């Protein structure tokens, strides 16, 4: 990792809701081809940080993507800078099929004026075929066949829906991918597939910020991690370092197993460091 090569950087980012400080003074940076983990108990502000990066909520502080400041832009402009994100609970829209969702993901990668479909149907068909191929390739990465494209989103099991949502985010060919609890709802086979896919993607110089409660998964895949508690950073480092810290062990390892995303972890106590 050479200096100056930074995929995503947050400097002193804070978010307030009314009088509540949901996120306070968070800094971290992620280099391309790296997976950075964001962990912390429920309500510690992980999703809020992703929302701040995407511009869904207002925030203070500086946010950079690929060395360019994006804070101050609207969501639309930020996404065009190469952000992609998934949702903790994707809403399966009625009447949308998997193909529709994936094409929506492609939205700003390829501008297509609507009249193209009317005036040059052949070009539109070609674009559609390309988009279908891309979608099939992405789905194949997680071992989902192209037959799924015609399925309605409402009919998908939770794990598959999350997988499709990730594919949707990838359709926009992002440089920085923000994943919000991708493994929740997935079974072990799916988690393994996701693991392999993320490895492959980060090999392709994608910057990945991963929010996750499944610590086993995080331990395996993350290059570095930030631990949050009540909106503040309480720990930084490689997974091994982080998991040796007292607070983190206390917060997570104390409770039953490595996979704790079902049970509510104890809050991490703020540390002096």
């Amino acid at each position, binding site marked *: 990792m050479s200096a100056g090569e930074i995929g995503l950087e947050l400097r002193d980012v804070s978010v307030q809701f009314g009088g509540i400080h949901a996120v306070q003074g968070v800094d971290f940076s992620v280099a391309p081809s790296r997976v950075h983990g964001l962990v912390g108990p429920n309500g510690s502000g992980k*999703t809020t940080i992703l*929302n701040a990066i995407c511009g*869904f909520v207002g925030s203070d502080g500086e946010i950079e993507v690929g060395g360019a400041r994006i804070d101050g832009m609207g969501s639309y402009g930020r996404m065009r800078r190469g952000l992609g994100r998934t*949702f*903790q609970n994707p809403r399966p829209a009625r009447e949308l099929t998997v193909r529709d969702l994936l094409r929506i993901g492609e939205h700003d990668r390829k501008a297509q004026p609507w009249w193209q479909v009317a005036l040059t149907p052949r070009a539109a068909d070609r674009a559609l075929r390309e988009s279908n191929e891309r979608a099939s390739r992405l789905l194949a990465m997680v071992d989902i066949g192209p037959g799924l494209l015609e399925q309605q989103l409402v009919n998908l099991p939770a794990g598959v829906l999350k997988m499709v949502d990730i594919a949707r985010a990838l359709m926009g060919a992002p440089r920085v991918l923000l994943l919000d609890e991708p493994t929740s709802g997935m079974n072990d086979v799916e988690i393994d597939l996701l693991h392999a896919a993320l490895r492959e993607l980060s090999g392709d110089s994608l910057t990945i910020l991963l929010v996750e409660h499944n610590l086993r998964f995080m331990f395996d895949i993350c290059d570095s991690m930030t631990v949050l508690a009540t909106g503040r950073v309480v720990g930084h480092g490689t997974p091994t370092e982080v998991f040796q810290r007292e607070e983190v062990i206390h917060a997570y390892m104390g409770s039953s197993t490595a996979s704790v995303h079902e049970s509510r972890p104890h809050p991490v106590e703020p540390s002096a460091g």
Partner: protein
Amino acid sequence: MSTFIQAVVAGIAAGAVYGLLGAGFSLAYKTTGIINFAHGDIAMLGAYVTFSVFGWGAPLFVAALAGVVAGGLAGAVMERGVLRPLYKRPLVAGILATVGVSVVLQSVIQLVWGSLPLTLPSLASSTPWRIGSVAFSPAQAVLLAVTIIVSTALIFAVDRTRVGRGMRACAQDSGVVVLFGISPERLYLTAFAIAGMLAGLAGALITPTIGLTPSRGVSLSVLGFAAAVLGGLGSVTGAIVGGIAIAVLRNLASVYVSAGYADAVAYLAIVLVLLVRVRGLLGDDLETVRSV
């Protein structure tokens, strides 16, 4: 200056009735989320019933009460018969169903009372008192007094009673009121019955001025809707304030701009208010924050 004061004074009296219409509209919306385009037709039904009962020799006051009861019944029947199956459906389904009810009510009125315009005497004399150059009639005083009494009672009921608080809770989460041992369906029925009664009252109060025609209901619905939205959908006080604001604006516009465009000026003002304050004048900030 005196024309100005006159326009404002007359506007306040007329606006009081719009406010009553808007309050009922708002109450039903607050509880069920449905925008009731039959509201004005219920008001007309109330007015026509008042007309008939008065015609049978009852005192006007009693006749107006009959109109109120008729409005309440119409509201209740509409809720049970038409809206109940539609709560889980998209907004437009409910709205268009109320349009259907409006068409039905209008044609029923036409079948029973005919389509010729009728008149109803007002509760008090309309020979004005004069204070300086400003005229104010006992009829207007009655309008204002009734509105003040009724809306105070209504605000009290919504704030203090169990059912009223249930209605407020229902606006945020209909599932929650079940926990308090209140049935949401009962609340919906109550809300529409009260809204219907308010409409019936407004009808009986306003028709001495505007006359009775079956097709009048639509414009009353629009007025009630505008009053409710301007004040902030869901707020009873807001609806009264909104109703008065609209009437005053219309009067001022017809004096200073042009009578033909009075309504347009009022509408323009409403749109501007909505652009500046997206929830209307007194709307509460209860819109739920969507989670990502």
